[in-house]
């Protein structure tokens, strides 16, 4: 599939940020979930990003770029894995809670809503920035069409 290299890179970032947002939404929704099918409270999840070379038909351009001075391949981003946060969550004392243990303590998920909100803003900003990058590519292209008009 053909696409301008820079746009292909930006699209991978859009994809990755959307998956990150999915995970954040899941965390936020389960901030109070003391019960999971696996037993125990919900464990916070996080995405791990990895830079990955963008598959592109323009290999010739790559070779030119990667042998000249200051050379680097074009890297997009992908979600390597979704990983669980192993840190223990808060343990609160609430004997009336349905999931309270014998001593009346309830293990809450290790989710800090404020942190998740900040991450959500980060993902949203990053998404916007990549959309801007795509728009910039398009604007440059259209500007080139004006040469000699």
């Amino acid at each position, binding site marked *: 599939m*053909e696409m*301008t*290299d820079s746009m292909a890179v930006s699209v991978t970032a859009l994809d990755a940020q959307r998956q990150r947002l999915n995970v954040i939404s899941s965390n936020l929704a389960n901030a109070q979930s003391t019960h999971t099918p696996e037993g125990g409270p919900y464990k916070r999840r996080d995405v791990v990003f990895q830079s990955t070379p963008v598959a592109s*038909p*323009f290999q*010739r*351009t790559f070779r030119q770029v990667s042998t000249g001075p200051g050379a680097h391949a074009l890297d997009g981003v992908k979600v390597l894995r979704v990983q669980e946060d192993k840190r223990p969550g808060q343990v609160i004392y609430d004997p009336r809670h349905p999931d309270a243990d014998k001593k009346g303590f309830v293990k809450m998920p290790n989710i800090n809503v404020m942190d998740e909100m900040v991450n959500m803003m980060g993902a949203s900003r990053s998404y916007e920035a990549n959309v801007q990058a795509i728009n910039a590519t398009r604007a440059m*292209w259209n500007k*080139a*069409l004006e*040469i*000699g008009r």
Partner: protein
Amino acid sequence: MDQIKAITMPTLSRLENATASHAAGGAPSSGFMNTLQQAIGKANDIQLEAGQATEALMTGQTQNIHQAMVALQEADVSFQLMMQIRNKLVSAYEEIQRMQI
């Protein structure tokens, strides 16, 4: 480009005949001829380059749109330059023709 040659070749051969038969000293007229021929050759080469750059862009071999645009622009300008040279030569020839009896 064949169409450029088709348009300009008759004029060139006319000019060549005229200058060959009326030229007193060979140097000035062949200078004009050379200029025009060089200009035509150059314009043709640039047109071919522009065509190649355009095709590379369309078939996805390159993302270099500005290269294609600049090449087309160069082709346009050099073609117009060549045309003006030719037009000036033709009108000079016609003026010389009128000067005959």
